[in-house]
């Protein structure tokens, strides 16, 4: 099959809608346009039935036993905001301390920063060089004022999967609410909020082949019953936690996307991991001083993050961007010129943080695409190294750290 350009390999920023998802959504724009809260006519009943079915699909995907525990939001960012701010406000009497990690998404980190300005204390637990949080470090960070532990399920840049079950167990023992930002993990790897001891879980549809503009927050109802102060006031929809007319077509799409992910997960995981490993082996086998970021084993199957020493990430992307969509750092930070804080948190030199490239695969990528991207990446990196003064110095045997750099 002929390759179609540009090739999309930036699936941790967003994914294309699965055509089956769009098909499921379409009737809800036109014939089935009712308001799910309209309790006294068939239009409303139909819409409510559709959102309930979607809610059940999403609940099933994350192992929630009760579909009512799923609260729809506008996306992952809102779900994370609601979880953190909602708990902070509701449990303020109980304590003012939050434990999180240094590699959370911006939505998590920036919400914590705001809470700090409002008088909360936040501990940002560091990660080990492989990107994993040491559960002991989380334990040590807990104080008698801790009301919330928030640790992401899988990282958006390096794909590292945290030991969520162990952190959930710890949170249970200490009687602390546990939130996980699972935006990158839901639909990709098995998740069970019950066995993993998760009290709050954020996710979004557009990363699992659903539409943009809808996400969900799982809010545990039993053992313990988690209460949240709402961020948006209004008609009291979503058990009072998130008012606003439900975007029925988006929710229907989310439900269908969740259903497809559940059905295809075992096969898709294996296929993407194989594709990813091939990409990784080809690149690391052909380029010297290229380093894998994150844990090689505990990693999302579709994620590959490599730092190419002596070349700058944006310049690599520029060499590829006519034909391939990849990312350097995350899409959230690529509008700034800061190097990746995630790679920096691994303890790598900041130069390597400037050199990271993320390949993230999706359902529709093929082996031919993988091979093409690998080949082009290798070519571009080699070309850039030929014009890199750092590569030249390193090849001459100069220790780059011995040079007194004149920073601006």
């Amino acid at each position, binding site marked *: 099959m002929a390759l179609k350009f540009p090739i999309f390999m930036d699936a941790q920023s967003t994914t294309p809608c699965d055509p089956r998802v769009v098909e499921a959504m379409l009737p809800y724009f036109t014939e089935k346009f009712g308001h799910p809260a309209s309790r006294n006519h068939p239009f409303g009943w139909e819409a409510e039935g559709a959102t309930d079915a979607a809610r059940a699909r999403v609940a099933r995907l994350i192992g929630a036993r009760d579909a009512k525990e799923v609260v729809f939001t506008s996306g992952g960012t809102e779900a994370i905001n609601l979880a953190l701010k909602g708990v902070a406000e509701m449990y303020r009497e109980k304590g003012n301390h939050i434990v999180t990690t240094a590699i959370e998404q911006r939505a998590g980190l920036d919400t914590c920063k705001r809470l700090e300005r409002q008088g909360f204390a936040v501990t940002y637990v560091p990660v080990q060089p492989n990107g994993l949080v040491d559960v002991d470090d989380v334990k040590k960070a807990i104080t008698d004022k801790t009301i919330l532990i928030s640790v992401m399920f899988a990282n958006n840049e390096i794909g590292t999967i945290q030991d969520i079950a162990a952190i959930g167990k710890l949170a249970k023992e200490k009687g602390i609410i546990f939130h996980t930002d699972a935006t990158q993990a839901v639909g990709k790897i098995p998740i069970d909020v019950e066995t993993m001891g998760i009290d709050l879980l954020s996710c979004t549809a557009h990363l699992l082949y659903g539409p943009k503009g809808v996400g969900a927050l799982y809010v545990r109802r039993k053992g313990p019953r988690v209460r949240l102060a709402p961020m948006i006031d209004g008609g009291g929809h979503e058990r009072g936690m998130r008012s606003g007319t439900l975007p029925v077509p988006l929710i229907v799409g989310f439900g269908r996307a969740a259903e497809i992910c559940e059905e295809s997960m075992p096969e898709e995981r294996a296929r993407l991991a194989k594709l990813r490993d091939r990409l990784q082996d080809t690149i690391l086998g052909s380029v010297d001083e290229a380093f894998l970021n994150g844990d090689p084993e505990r990693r999302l199957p579709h994620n590959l993050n490599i730092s190419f020493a002596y070349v700058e990430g944006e310049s690599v992307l520029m060499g590829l961007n006519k034909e391939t969509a990849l990312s350097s750092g995350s899409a959230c930070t690529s509008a700034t010129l800061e190097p990746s804080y995630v790679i920096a948190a691994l303890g790598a030199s900041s*130069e390597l943080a*400037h050199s990271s490239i993320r390949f993230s695969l999706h359902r529709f990528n093929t082996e031919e695409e993988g091979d093409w991207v690998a080949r082009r990446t290798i070519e571009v990196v080699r070309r850039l190294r030929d014009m890199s003064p*750092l590569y030249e110095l390193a090849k001459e045997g100069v220790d780059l750290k011995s040079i007194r750099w004149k920073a601006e």
Partner: protein
Amino acid sequence: MAYSEKVVDHYNNPRNVGSFPKDTLGVGTGLVGAPECGDVMKLQIKVNVQTGVIEDAKFKTFGCGSAIASSSLATEWLKGKTVDEAAKIKNTDIVSELKLPPVKIHCSVLAEDAIKAALADCKEKWLKAGAPAASTT
């Protein structure tokens, strides 16, 4: 962020990539920036000792496309200029030629720094060698 056509052209067809032997009389090397800032430029000029004219220039850059373009353009402009003329190249000239957006202005500043550093290095070596310093400023 979309790049200007000129930046893309310099990125795809960089002019004068390479190196001169550092210790040759008449060669000046400027190495500016820092790896942890994501930008390092090495810019070299080869000056005719008699005339003070820059006969050749080369660069190597670690950095984004705009940094590569800024240094590539600088080498193009340096060739054929006297050292005095070269010292007058301003970062703003590079900004307007390459249509750099505000977030990329630091790339042009770095290129100007590299030119200045190469000129200074050339002069220093010149003085050390006891050559007539009349044609440098």
